[in-house]
């Protein structure tokens, strides 16, 4: 045999890269219209996932922008200075007035009674002539909009009654009309108009009763402004029109310098409602996690769609390789095609991200006092793009890398298919990079990176577990001895054969069901807690602002009304945490979980013995005769959130005095019992001589009826008009309404994740339809009846649905328990009937979807398929 020197290997020609790129683009461009159907599920999955995430981001941005834009209106001024239980001194008022116009607001709670016996707890807001400093107050009269000035409406009438403008709810509750008289505390008032919209409503926080607007002179006749009563004095500062943030900062600095020890809570237009901002952040964080779940579930659909695409491309890829295409060329052209469709999905998702918030605002926009400006932001669109691309790469890379290994020799085979492939180190490195990119996009765009990180970890574990479960099921199905019944044999074979639905169904349905079960159980437990458990253990009434000198008489009165009732009472003051371990409250980091305790003033108390419903977790209680330096008992869960332990010091501002106390012990508090308990309980000597009021609870016996409660409330109103009574059932109803709205939001958003699961399931069924058609045709040719085929499919889908349901129930319940017990500190129960309902519904859905996808196959005639095979 002759040997000659080998011909030089043809090397790539100069400019060849550009020509190859041009060929690649042409191939992709021509393939796109043909492949649209094949990629429709990929587009849908990406659109849904990106749309969900973008809707949350867009809504959150609009809410934040709205709060900042309307901050001045929400707050009622550029800055607000609030004192509890005392008015500002002349010096403090002067310091404020040097900076701009000042408007005073007094807020208190009281009982409003009609001239009959009905009584309702109301939130009183006493305003001055400058109110409102920002925004407009809209009122209604008897026949239409009220146009008279507020000062006229609040002035005294001929009978000496001060005018009040009330929440229209109050008219219904007390069965009165505009023009009727009302008693509030010791005073009598005339209802002159109703409130339609209040520009600074949000800055007042959650109230227990309807609003009543009156003048400063009017509130002084209520008898509610007693030393120690829970009255808030707010001073709203309006700077020169157009004052920027630097001017505001300067004004605040000058005020702080002039009266450094005022101890007031300061709000600015940039953080007009910290409570609402926190709630928005938490809610959007939750929605973002649901959107992320939809994206992850959709990722399974992406993987399936790309796998199906790659399977159909075997001949094309083999042909290109036979003509000289390198693996890189093959991989790049396939990736380009997938990314082209991903971009279509992302574009639709971005559109959904704008549309869904608008729809939400259309349904529920009147819940907010300001209009939301939903608009396109380039930065957010970039985030959506990154989400979509990183998800696509994470889930599409593996099937594309596998397709790259298709050999040109496939063209010579009768049934060409992608070869078995395990991948090499560079492939795994590329996959790792794609996953890292996805993780980075999620973490960097999350408002709470810790929660996002935990969630990603949990979701990854769930996906991995599901994949292992699917593999386990397939192995088991393979290992099980062949059943004698053909139906079972066929079904079993379908569970583990190449191209089986098992991984897709278990992954997508399993993940979607886990989320649905978890959210449903959280919802059920919250509802049970509020509707069933709490009313049984909570007191019947809370009484607030009981003057110290009246407490004994009040308690005697209650005992007389209901001898069998249990009455508890504690002294109450209001205080605000100024510093923790020497660090000012405003400088504390990493305390997001308990940041609510630092926002504004809190109820505090003092006691000789530990309160009911709590136990000492660490440290020791002070002795009954203790007279040393101020000590404080701190609620353990809050202390842990603030990084506090026994021996640490905190400073609080109470009635203008700064008290520094050492933590003597930490208490475990069972908040859900709704008994009297406080975050901070001080040693009795701490507030010696300070004015205070009492807070009391009354638990009527179980035999008490709602009519008895109402009668008691009426009697109370007559005997003690200045004492406010909160009927716990009313409060629970108010919270229940909020929880119901929250539940609705939870269900809607979990529906999105479930929709993604169903999409993916549908895609998996569609992808396998061709193979099933061929199989069904051959089986029919060999004598299988439609009934046999149908039964085997039924068994197969029932098995798959059952596996996904079991996984969803177990993991969903575990997740719900973690949230309910671990995070919310509530008792967790696993209600059987609702869980079974979800399980049965999901089970039936899997079977229906599976059968509907394959039903038409059963009726196909064999000849056309056999002719073209």
């Amino acid at each position, binding site marked *: *045999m*002759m040997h000659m020197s*080998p011909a030089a290997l043809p090397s790539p*020609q100069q400019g060849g890269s550009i*020509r190859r790129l041009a*060929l690649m683009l042409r191939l992709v461009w021509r393939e796109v219209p043909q492949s649209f159907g094949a990629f429709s599920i990929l587009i849908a999955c990406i659109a849904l996932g990106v749309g969900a995430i973008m809707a949350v981001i867009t809504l959150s941005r609009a809410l934040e922008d709205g709060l900042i834009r309307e901050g001045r209106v929400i707050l009622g001024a550029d800055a607000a200075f609030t004192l509890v239980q005392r008015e500002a001194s002349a010096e403090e008022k002067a310091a404020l007035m040097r900076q701009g116009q000042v408007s005073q607001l007094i807020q208190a709670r009281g009982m409003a009674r009609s001239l009959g016996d009905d009584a309702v707890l109301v939130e009183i807001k006493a305003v001055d002539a400058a109110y409102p400093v920002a925004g407009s107050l809209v009122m209604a009269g008897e026949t239409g909009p009220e146009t008279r000035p507020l000062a006229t409406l609040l002035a005294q009438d001929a009978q000496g009654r001060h005018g009040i403008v009330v929440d229209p709810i109050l008219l219904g509750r007390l069965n009165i009309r505009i023009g009727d008289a009302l008693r509030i505390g010791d005073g009598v008032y005339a209802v002159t108009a109703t409130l339609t919209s209040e520009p600074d409503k949000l800055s007042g926080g959650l109230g227990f009763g309807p609003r009543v607007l009156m003048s400063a002179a009017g509130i002084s006749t209520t008898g509610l402004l007693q030393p120690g009563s829970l009255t808030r004095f707010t001073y709203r500062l309006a700077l020169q029109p157009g004052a920027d943030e630097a001017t505001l900062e300067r004004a605040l600095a000058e005020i702080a310098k002039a009266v450094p020890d005022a101890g007031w809570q300061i709000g600015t237009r940039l953080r007009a409602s910290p409570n609402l901002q926190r709630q928005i952040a938490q809610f959007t964080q939750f929605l973002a996690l649901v959107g992320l779940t939809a994206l992850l579930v959709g990722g399974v659909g992406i993987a399936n769609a790309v796998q199906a695409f790659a399977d159909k491309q075997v001949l*094309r890829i083999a042909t290109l390789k*036979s003509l000289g*295409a390198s693996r890189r060329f093959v991989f790049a052209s396939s990736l380009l095609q997938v990314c082209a469709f991903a971009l279509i999905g992302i574009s639709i998702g971005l559109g959904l991200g704008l549309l869904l918030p608008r729809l939400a605002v259309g349904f529920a926009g009147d819940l907010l006092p300001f209009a939301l400006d939903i608009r396109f932001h380039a930065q957010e669109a970039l985030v959506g793009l990154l989400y979509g691309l990183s998800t696509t790469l994470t889930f599409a890379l593996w099937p594309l890398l596998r397709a790259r290994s298709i050999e040109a020799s496939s063209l*010579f085979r009768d049934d060409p298919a992608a070869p078995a492939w395990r991948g090499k180190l560079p492939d795994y490195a590329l996959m790792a990079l794609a996953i890292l990119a996805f993780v980075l996009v999620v973490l960097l765009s999350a408002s709470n990176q810790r929660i996002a990180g935990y969630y990603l970890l949990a979701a990854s574990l769930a996906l991995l577990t599901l994949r292992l479960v699917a593999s386990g099921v397939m192995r088991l199905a393979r290992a099980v001895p062949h059943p004698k019944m053909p139906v079972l044999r066929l079904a079993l074979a379908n569970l583990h054969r190449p191209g089986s639905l098992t991984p897709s169904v278990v992954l997508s349905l399993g993940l979607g069901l886990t989320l649905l079960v978890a959210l449903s159980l959280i919802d059920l437990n919250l509802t049970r807690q509020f509707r069933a458990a709490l009313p049984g253990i909570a007191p019947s009434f809370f009484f607030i602002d009981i003057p110290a000198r009246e407490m004994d008489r009040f308690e005697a009165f209650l005992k007389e009304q209901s001898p069998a009732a249990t009455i508890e009472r504690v002294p109450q003051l209001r205080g605000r945490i100024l510093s923790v371990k020497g660090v000012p409250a405003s400088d504390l980091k990493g305390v997001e979980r308990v940041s609510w305790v630092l926002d504004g003033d809190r109820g505090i108390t003092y006691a000789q013995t530990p309160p009911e419903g709590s136990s000492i977790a660490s440290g020791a209680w002070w002795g009954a005769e203790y007279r040393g330096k101020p000590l404080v008992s701190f609620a353990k869960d809050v202390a842990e959130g603030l990084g506090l332990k026994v021996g640490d010091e905190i400073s609080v501002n109470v009635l203008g005095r700064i008290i520094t106390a050492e933590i003597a012990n930490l208490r475990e508090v069972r908040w859900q019992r709704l008994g009297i308990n406080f975050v901070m309980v001080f040693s009795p000597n701490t507030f010696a001589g300070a004015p205070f009021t009492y807070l009391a609870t009354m638990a009527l016996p179980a035999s008490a009826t709602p009519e008895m409660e109402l009668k008691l409330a009426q009697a109370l109103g007559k005997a003690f008009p200045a004492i406010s009574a909160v009927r716990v059932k009313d409060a629970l109803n108010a919270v229940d309404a909020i929880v119901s709205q929250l539940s609705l939001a939870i269900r809607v958003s979990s529906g999105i994740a479930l929709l993604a699961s169903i999409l993916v399931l549908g895609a998996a069924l569609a992808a396998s339809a061709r193979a099933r058609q061929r199989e069904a045709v051959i089986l029919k040719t060999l004598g299988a009846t439609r009934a046999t085929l149908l039964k085997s499919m039924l068994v197969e889908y029932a098995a798959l649905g059952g596996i996904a349901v079991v996984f969803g129930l177990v993991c969903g319940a575990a997740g719900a328990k973690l949230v309910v017990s671990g995070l919310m500190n509530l008792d967790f129960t696993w209600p059987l009937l609702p869980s079974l309902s979800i399980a049965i519904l999901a089970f039936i859905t899997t079977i229906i979807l599976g059968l509907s996808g394959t039903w038409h196959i059963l009726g196909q005639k064999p000849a056309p398929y056999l002719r073209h095979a």
Partner: protein
Amino acid sequence: MTPKAPAIAMQNVDLSLGSGAARVHILRGVTLEVAEGVAVGLVGPSGSGKSTLLMVAAGLERPNSGSVQVAGQELTGLPEDALARFRGQRIGIVFQAFHLIPTLTAEENVAIPLELAGVPDAFLRARAELEAVGLGARRNHYPGQLSGGEQQRVAIARALAPRPTILVADEPTGNLDEATGRDIINLLFALKRERGTTLLLVTHDMGLAALCDRVIRLKAGRIEEETALRGVA
């Protein structure tokens, strides 16, 4: 005078596929030399290894042992991408099922190997090849718009466009009627003669095999018989 090097030289080629109980010994110790410009017909019963031998010669299958040289280049040790490049420029393949890219026109299909090789005037050359197979007027038509015979002509043009050293054809008339198949074979041999390309042809048709310069009969993975029909080696 130094004898010319063979276009194809195989030495003791062994190839098995599958694993375990499913492992099949396809080629057993095949040794073969084909001179430049010669047409070789590969015949034999189904499963004799004809198509596999073709794939080995085209660099589409790697033997488990032995040596395969095409145009003096040893193929067995070449990395995959280098092999793809070599194949694109030195080896033309004509398939029974044509395997044209359905979303590209006839001209674009023919241009693919040239574009992959980075040839600057790929489309001009593609057009010339289509003219040579009589389809110049159909260059902007898609495969779906062409008859079977026309598609095979495009495939032949595509295979010959890079001026390959060897042309392998696997049952090129298998999907065509008799008359069209005859036309295709005439075209194939005419172009082969014109360009001095070495042709390796798998066929069940003994009449077609008789047109070749040599016929190699395979049985059970071995060369059973070689017949020189026209006095060439």
